[in-house]
């Protein structure tokens, strides 16, 4: 299933920093990963680890005071880090699309959902007539499973539930069959049964539209369910990169291990102590000198506190950033 395909997106040494009054926040600090066509990459990590900033950096949607300061973002052969905003506009919504965490606030309240989808279509296909774009929008609404799409075309976002709005976002993102879909915590704000609906929908559409997905989430369950490959992020860096089966079978990085062990699952025994990761995530303004996880790591050695490890290849085509390997 996970074969060595030509990379659709290849990110190398990406650094996105925020220049705040208190200092430079290295939200993303040297990140490497790649996504092949049709493949799903899951990026997991806790809040503030830089996973959303990574996604926005790929879309080049980082706003001041943030800036991509280093690295390359190769997408379909061109480096997005060097592209002009004009070129980015042609790609966004067309070859690469994005959906967001908050379906309640991500749609413009003053336009109908149909108009918003039609706008996406017409932005990139200027030849298309109003009528044809409208038909396309209705078709997309039907495809994402919205009942009575012709009627719902004229609905305003506030007239829809969270799950329905997230469907609209997906319809909008997929309306031009992008090669890459970036989904930033697409189900976090939704209820469990609605989350199940959206995840099933995404799986189904992924096959039908043949799109690669970059799925950003904090939920390891969602990753296990959806992803082919996984990148685990911690404090602005990727600590482990692996295919989903190896990662869950045998996590290498102590952070990944800790994370997996600390989730209560339906299989875990009641009231048995959960594994915990000591301490809290470091402040990005005052990062420890060596490995960023060293202060919380049960296996930390002297070198970990002094020298920052880099992501290196280990057996089985996996990568890990840890002195243990």
């Amino acid at each position, binding site marked *: 299933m996970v074969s060595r395909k030509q990379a659709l997106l290849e990110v190398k040494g990406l650094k996105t920093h925020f220049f705040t009054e208190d200092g430079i926040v290295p939200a993303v600090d040297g990140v490497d990963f790649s996504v092949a066509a049709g493949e799903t990459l899951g990026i997991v990590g806790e809040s503030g680890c830089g996973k959303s900033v990574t996604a926005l950096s790929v879309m080049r949607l980082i706003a001041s005071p943030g800036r991509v300061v280093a690295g390359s973002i190769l997408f379909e052969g061109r480096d997005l880090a060097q592209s002009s905003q004009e070129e980015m506009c042609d790609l966004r919504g067309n070859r690469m699309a994005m959906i967001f965490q908050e379906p309640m606030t991500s749609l413009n309240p003053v336009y109908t959902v149909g108009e918003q989808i039609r706008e996406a279509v017409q932005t990139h296909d200027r030849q298309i007539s109003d009528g044809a774009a409208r038909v396309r929008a209705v078709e997309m609404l039907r495809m994402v499973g919205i009942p009575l799409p012709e009627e719902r075309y004229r609905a305003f976002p506030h007239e829809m539930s969270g799950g329905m709005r997230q469907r609209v976002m997906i319809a909008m993102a997929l309306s031009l069959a992008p090669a890459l879909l970036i989904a930033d915590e697409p189900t976090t704000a939704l209820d469990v*049964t609605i989350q199940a609906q959206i995840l099933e929908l995404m799986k189904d559409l992924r096959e039908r539209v043949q799109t690669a997905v970059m799925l950003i989430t904090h939920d390891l369950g969602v990753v296990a369910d959806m992803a082919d490959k996984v990148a685990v992020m911690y404090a602005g860096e990727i600590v482990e990169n692996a295919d989903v089966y190896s990662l*869950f079978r045998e996590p290498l990085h102590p952070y990944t291990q800790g994370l997996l062990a600390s989730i209560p699952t339906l299989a875990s025994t009641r009231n048995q102590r959960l594994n915990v990761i000591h301490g809290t995530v470091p402040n990005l303004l005052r990062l420890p000198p060596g490995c960023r996880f060293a202060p919380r790591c049960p296996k930390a050695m002297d070198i970990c506190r002094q020298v920052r490890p880099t992501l290196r290849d280990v057996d089985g085509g996996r990568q890990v950033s840890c002195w243990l390997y």
Partner: protein
Amino acid sequence: MNSEQSTVSRDAKAVASNGKVLLSVRDLKKYYPIRGGLLRRTVAQVKAVDDVSFEIKAGETFGLVGESGCGKTTIGRTIIHLLTATAGQVLFDGQDVFKLGGGELKRLRRDMQIIFQDPYGSLDPRMPVGEIVGEGLRIHNIGDPKKREEMVRETMSLVGLRGQYARRYPHEFSGGQRQRIGIARALVLRPKFVVCDEPVSALDVSIQSQVLNLLTELREELGLTYLFIAHNLAVVKYISDRIGVMYLGRLAETSVSERLYEHPMHPYTQALVSAIPIPDPTMRRQRIVLKGDVPSPVNPPSGCRFHTRCPQYIGDVCKMVEPQLVEKEPGHFVACHLY
């Protein structure tokens, strides 16, 4: 009318050391009026909680799960009388909570406490942490200032916070630490019963497990009884002895927690259990995906409230008759016409 007293299951007995019922909720209803029109009359009612009954035994943890808007939070707040119930009864230690006068209610508050979800909104940003934790002591005039300070420090260390941080303000603490402050505030009066209202939902995974462990330890150490409310089934299952599943203001199913996951009976519980993403890629399976959204609690569907989305709809009986919660296995109650 379902009488749970008669059917204390073996499992529940095992956990509830003396088997004494601490809290008994009977036919609880909480409706919110919707006003409208020229004269602001009540035109409709949100039936947030509609006829819910259950019992919690001393030392036991009862979990309530359900999706947003199912009324689980409203139940928690109505039980400790933060909200006034529309109808029904709550007996705590034999006292009818809703019939208590001001002074008696205030005394009762020393026994019943609540822990909130939002580690940011639940602490007064303009109060030092020590004062937040010690507020209960001041309200109930316990001890002199010196004694109170001592008790505050003791409680702070109980939840794993350094006493010397008492003069700091909430904004200086991380989410997990703030949640500990909230727990300390609830425990400073040494209550018997604590409503945990989504206490870990806003926390990151690694912090969530710290807080869950803490809650478990405190329960053992202080002999607490919890009503644990959450939307994450895995978390609820982890901490609870018995679980109630709510849908649109009503209990769909209650059972001993292991049994509920091994053998969910209500189609909604089945869907809910199957919808939880499992952190194991080899376990990818066919989910039961429910149709549509949760209907509005303003005009809940007739008959069984779940019939509009039920994958096992069996006909008019579901649409017409409201199923009652009945014991189908020892300690396992379900409200469904299938059984």
